[in-house]
């Protein structure tokens, strides 16, 4: 496999592309809006996209999990690490959530769990402040008892 090539698309986002050993060229456009394009390049023209699939972040994560044969959906919760009753788990914020700050949600006082990191577009905010706004582009990493974590994820569903 040839090395993956990353290029900047000013005003759009980033693009990754590489060729498989069989010579097929594929790529991903990461838009700063959060959406992803999965692209396939033409066989007779190495620079031209012939097929493009536009995906939301969730859809892209599902595809990424499928490609690496990871458990999907609810089963993924088993990936959470549990140490003496304290667990870390993460989930992407559902589309219908809108956008609110961590402080507004009163996560810690309502559930007892803490948001320890927010990941957006591959960028990690390792100590999100209470005024950090979260929306459907974010994956939220939560620390707490498994029950408290489940409460946090329920908050995302109900607001």
């Amino acid at each position, binding site marked *: 496999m040839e090395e993956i090539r990353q*290029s*900047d698309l*000013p*005003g759009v986002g980033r693009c990754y592309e590489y060729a498989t050993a069989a010579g097929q060229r594929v790529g991903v456009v990461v838009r700063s809006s959060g959406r992803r394009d999965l692209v396939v390049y033409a066989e007779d023209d190495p620079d031209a*996209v012939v097929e*493009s699939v536009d995906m939301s972040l969730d859809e892209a994560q599902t595809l990424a999990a499928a490609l690496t044969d990871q458990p999907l959906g609810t089963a993924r919760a088993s990936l959470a690490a549990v140490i003496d009753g304290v667990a870390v788990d993460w989930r992407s914020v559902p589309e219908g959530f809108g956008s609110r700050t961590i402080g507004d949600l009163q996560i810690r006082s309502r559930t007892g769990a803490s948001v320890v990191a927010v990941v957006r577009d591959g960028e990690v905010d390792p100590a999100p402040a209470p005024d950090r*706004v979260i929306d459907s582009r974010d994956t939220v990493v939560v620390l707490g008892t498994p029950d408290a974590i489940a409460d946090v994820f329920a908050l995302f569903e109900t607001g």
Partner: protein
Amino acid sequence: MIVAAGGDALLLAELGAVILACGLLARLAGHLSLSPIPFYLLVGLLINQSGPLHVDAGRDFIEPAAAIGVVLLLFTLGLEYTPTELTVGLRTNGLGGLFDLVANATPGYLFGVLLGLDAPQSLALAGVTYISSSGIIAKLLGDLGRTGNRETPVVLSILVIEDLVMAFYLPLLAGLLAGGSAGSIVASVSLAVAAVVVVLLGTVRVGPTLSRLVFTRSPEVLLLTVLGLTLLVAGAAEALQVSAAVGAFLVGIALSGEAAERAEPLLMPLRDVFAAAFFLLFALEIDLGAIPDAIGPALSLAVLTAVTKVATGWWSARRAGIATRGRWRAGTTLIARGEFSIVIAGLAVLADPDSEIGAIAASYVLVLALVGPLATRFSDELVARFSRRRQVAVA
């Protein structure tokens, strides 16, 4: 009161008719996958006071609206980019940017001199031919599904460099056109350069704070805050002879994160309305009698600078390791000229209302805003046909 209401009725009806005409033509442009800009210019030429369908179309409204249109065009341009993206362009394709500047600004300047324009007006014509339309091109890349193409980063890096050059070029041009003393021009240009550099370097630190201050969840409050801030800075920049457009561009760059993402969809429709007013006013100001004389130079300039743009894209793409067809796609994509050529010509016309540059720039943009997108759409087929013919000739 009744008289005033009667005046309003006429104003509303005329303005409505003109905006509706623009809307209908923009719809047609959309169906044909063309830029609406040439169509706005055509409407302006038609209702021009020496035009066939003269309408007075609320000049009292259109004039300030056009000024706001320029400010919003540059503001939303700045909003597209983060300071990092601007510098990345320079780092990855600085040479391509230099090729672009030399190959495309020179023909405009020389034509200006040949046509007997003075140095500031010739410099304006250089800007008209230099700057590709990032609006048309960004839409084109999306429409043709070329966002992921390997030549696209090359195209975008050239556009970014052009936009950065504009930030330094506009205050220089504004100073020269105003015709102040050498000292005052140097002062306003240095001030502009300092402002651009401070914003580019400072945004990384101050941007998040500014964006947090501006951010609010209410669309209405956010819209008014951002619009007010942009106009205020643009006005201050104009007062300091830095050019309102550059002030607005810098506000766009400085705003980032949440505030920028939320403000963009709110301001885009507003920009579209006011920018249409700007294109209309530009065409309204043109002396139609000057058009026949302008067509010759405009067409020759269009052909020449279409070729130099293709050369720019072709050469830059080859340097980036792109194959033949991709090089031609990159080159033809860059042909389109549009909003910023008109913005620059607008400055020149403002300084000298009798300047031929208005008629030349309008004809020039009319041609290249239409031909550019068509050329790149059929680029692959043209290259295939040409190489087949060459193979036949060789055989």
